[in-house]
């Protein structure tokens, strides 16, 4: 029954690899930029806080597909030549996901009480020691479940790069389906692949959430 999938397995799996690579780029860039965004959102300087807040609020209200298209149109104008859809998609994902990770980091930073910081100082720890041994470990453990969840969402979102013609898994499935006309098997296969990866991810997220709850961190 699944012979259509079997015949095209290498072609399809190569597409899945593209999804994974795109997610990898999006996460690396999105988390890095997200840390800056999160810091900007708790900044007391209005010229930092205002533009960063505007950036976050605008991006979070726009569909990702539209952001992907927008960068697809704007990048050639900025760079002066047509870019590979992967590069264009990666840039849009980084800019888009950074706003979501930024909010996770902001919540994490803000969740640390001032008393805790004062307590750390009173034991004689320096600013960097406080950050290194108290603030970062606690904030990280609190943020970890949401970070994993957001990573899963990012991974699912990579399928949307389909719209600018990137040869990821879904695009390749439509190509195979137009030749084989075996929609049920083919799309079930894609769904199962995504499901397995995302389900495992959501279990890991829940594991850390419960661990945090047991340690009275959340």
């Amino acid at each position, binding site marked *: 029954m699944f012979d259509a999938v079997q015949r095209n397995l290498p072609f399809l799996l190569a597409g899945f690899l593209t999804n994974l690579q795109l997610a990898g780029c999006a996460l690396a860039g999105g988390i890095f930029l997200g840390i800056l965004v999160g810091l900007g959102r708790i900044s007391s300087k209005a010229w930092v806080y205002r533009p960063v807040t505007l950036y976050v609020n*605008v991006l979070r209200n726009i569909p990702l597909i539209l952001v992907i298209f927008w960068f697809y*149109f704007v990048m050639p104008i*900025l760079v002066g030549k047509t870019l590979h859809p992967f590069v264009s998609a990666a840039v849009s994902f980084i800019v888009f996901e950074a706003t979501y990770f930024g909010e996770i980091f902001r919540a994490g930073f803000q969740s640390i009480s001032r008393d805790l910081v004062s307590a750390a100082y009173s034991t004689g720890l320096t600013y960097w020691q406080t950050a290194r041994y108290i603030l970062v470990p606690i904030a990280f453990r609190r943020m970890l479940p949401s970070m994993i969840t957001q990573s899963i969402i990012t991974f699912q979102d990579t399928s949307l790069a389909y719209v600018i013609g990137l040869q990821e898994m879904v695009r390749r499935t439509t190509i195979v389906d137009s030749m084989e006309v075996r929609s049920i098997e083919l799309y079930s296969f894609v769904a199962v692949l995504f499901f397995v990866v995302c389900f495992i991810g959501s279990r890991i997220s829940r594991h850390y959430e419960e661990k945090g709850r047991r340690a009275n961190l959340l």
Partner: protein
Amino acid sequence: MLAYKFDWSVLWRQPYGEWLLGGIWLTLQLGFVAWIIALVLGIFLGTIRVSPWPWLRFLGTLYVEVFRNVPFLVQLFFWFYAGPMLFGREIQFKINAISGLNYYVAIIGLGLYTASRVAEHVRAGFASIGQGQYQAVLSTGMTHLQMYRYVIIPYALRVIIPPLTTEFLTIFKNSSVAMTIGVAETTFVSYKIDNETFHGLEATTGAMAVYLVLGFAVVRLMGFIESRFRIPGLVSR
């Protein structure tokens, strides 16, 4: 940097202006109709996930896990391309002959997907209600069904208005995925304008403004609903 001449008139010049208005109208339709499906199904699923019957809980959990862990694009393609095949050849041809099939599939698909997310919020809403509340209601002699109908669901729904606002916003954003099966909503139109005029940058920027205004309107609307149905005695947020 390439020399690029902006032409913002693609946003109102005919026929593009009319396309865009049609696109906005479709986005609104997709969002609202799918939201009704999502709300009804989501509340049902969220409720059976906290029911005392294990097999019902299992079915609810299965639904939520499947629909949350598969990308919406894949779900939509499955319903659109494989969906009609599930009914056998004869009915398949009849379904494929329906005009505007992609529109119906987009609404149902979006509704089914969002229902899984609504169900999670509903479950969390139930979890936030203390055990004492349940015991108190049952001790008044209400049946389980009455308890849910008159006390727990009305209470839980009010508690989850803020997260539901987020979902309501998300449903309009997710409706843009319907463009992939050819539904001419806002995002589809902006792409189509690019095809005709090569001014995709202006068209997509205009579409972004549409979603921003829509998002702002939704936040306002839900803020009104929240204050209208506030539970007396609870701290208002």
